[in-house]
């Protein structure tokens, strides 16, 4: 069976505020989909309706074709979820917490034992298996929560900002875990506002703002949206470059629509015309032998599109 998630006209109002506005979205297949949007865009609201933590004002959410609102238990059987940062009963150990999850899912004792070892290994918490969860840091608890969401080796994994509150190392580890999950032919639906995280692990993105879906597309298609649009590129040089040299050898290049100096050895240019034009500018800068040290887009393509779409939505 192909794992799938679907929202049909999913709407949620809180009084006069529309948190989610007729979301129509269907994702299916083994892949990682990043669910993006600024704070308050409606990402968590949507995920909570996918897990029946809150109820839609109208519309319906489906996991593998089963309505969460009408058959919560059956729908969630094939899903592993991590919404917000759940707390585990503090006196339980990770082993006991995962035993509870496995038992509630109807797994046999031997399956629970072997799967507990696997998922704890996956989240690098094997050494803590019998310690009390109540004494764990937020990052450690989050890893146990991720382990719990994987306990039944689910087809669909819903993650709500899984690296929230983690230190840089913890965030990198969560990214590794999510990357590892993709090997298991699962559908991973992950909300995040960390664009680099999404670029790093996801194949597709859905962008939400003010409760409305702005687009849902593959990451490569998102980059194509930038064609014809301006891209900001940061330049750095080995040694200080004069204003004249900058103006004549950088600012005058075809495709460069604006130039601004950051300091003696750094500048930012805006290049219009897509990847080919960017490549041409880079080749000419190297050929000019002005000591170019780095040529790096100020923002990723996703970030450019994100800001572009969000600002369109805001205006």
């Amino acid at each position: 069976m192909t794992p799938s998630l679907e929202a049909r006209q999913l709407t949620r109002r809180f009084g006069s505020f529309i948190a989610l506005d007729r979301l129509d979205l269907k994702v299916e297949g083994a892949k990682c989909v990043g669910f993006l949007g600024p704070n308050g865009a409606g990402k968590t609201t949507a995920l909570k309706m996918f897990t029946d933590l809150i109820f839609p004002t109208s519309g319906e959410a489906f996991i593998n074709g089963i309505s969460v609102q009408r058959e919560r238990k059956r729908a969630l059987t094939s899903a592993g979820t991590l919404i917000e940062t759940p707390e585990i009963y503090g006196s339980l150990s990770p082993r006991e917490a995962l035993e509870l999850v496995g038992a509630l899912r109807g797994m046999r004792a031997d399956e629970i034992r072997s799967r507990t070892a696997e998922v704890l290994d996956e989240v690098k918490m094997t050494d803590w298996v019998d310690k009390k969860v109540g004494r764990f840091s937020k990052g450690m608890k989050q890893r146990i929560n991720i382990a719990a969401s994987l306990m039944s080796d689910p087809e669909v994994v819903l993650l709500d900002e899984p690296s929230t509150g983690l230190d840089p190392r913890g965030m990198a580890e969560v990214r590794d875990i999510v990357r590892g999950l993709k090997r298991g032919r699962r559908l991973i639906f992950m909300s995040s506002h960390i664009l680099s995280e999404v670029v790093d692990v996801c194949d597709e993105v859905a962008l939400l703002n003010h409760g409305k879906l702005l687009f849902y597309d593959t990451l490569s298609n998102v980059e194509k949206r930038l064609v014809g649009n301006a891209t900001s590129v940061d330049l750095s040089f080995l040694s200080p470059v004069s204003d004249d040299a900058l103006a004549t050898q950088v600012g005058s290049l075809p495709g460069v629509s604006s130039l601004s100096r950051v300091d003696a050895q750094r500048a930012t240019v805006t290049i219009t015309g897509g990847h080919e034009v960017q490549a041409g500018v880079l080749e000419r800068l190297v050929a000019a032998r002005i000591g170019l040290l780095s040529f790096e887009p100020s923002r990723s393509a996703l970030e450019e599109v994100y800001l572009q779409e969000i600002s369109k939505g805001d205006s």
Partner: protein
Amino acid sequence: MTTVLASPPSSSGGPWMGQVPNTFSQAVLLSRYQFRDYLRSSRFILMMAIVAVIGSILSIVLSYYHGAGLTGSADAFYGTLWAGGATVVIIFSGIIFGGDAIAGEFQNKTGYFLMGLPIRRGSVYVGKFLAAYAASLVAVIFYLVILVANGEYYLGGGALSLPLFESFAIALLYMLALLGAVFLFSSMFKNSLYAVLVVAVLFLFGFTIIEDLIAGLVKIEPWFIITYAQNVISYPFLASVPAHVVTTPGPRGGELTTYNPTYPQGLAIMAGYFLVTAVGGLLLFEREEFT
């Protein structure tokens, strides 16, 4: 624009797709882990300490005063010390184990851990209720053990009597009713502190004051107040059940009316309270959102 991509893989990664237990089995499973959590918690130690203090005070008082009125018979002894003490222990354990049982799921976010699983909310509610009941039962039994130890010492061997078992059974029904009510209040709040405060105020003195005001001033039998029913816990020790309505001369030529529940009435109030509050609390929890 919404793009639906085609060509998903033909199979998934080998998930575990067994039979999820039924609603009641899941409730029992959850109660086992919740009970384990209670047993290891500081609140359990607190509850045992409260019972130990009550038991110690009782033992000390008995060692100084063990007149014939109290230690003359098993019924007098247990009628005085069991019925009064057990209701206090039940109320405290209800507050400590049940006060934040449901509210805490929202405030402490433990609900997020459970509610993302294929489990009905009813299983969570019943599981937590069973665990709170079991933890309260441990406290009540601990109190009973202290009392029986004193009873055996002052009354001699074999003082355990049928009325004590009858009264214990009624106390268990009262505990069911009280926890039902406590869980209802706990379901009304998403803040543990409010839930515990409301439950503590109501059960420690609120209901008793309301009961006295209704009976004394309005002269209506307070059959709808749970604490009114608790009097029947002492009935097994009495030679005769007190009169249902007692009128005594009051101040300024008035009358004071006191009501005592009849035996069946007391049991019916407890059972009714349990059914109404348990169902009410469950319905509230079913509709609460984890916003």
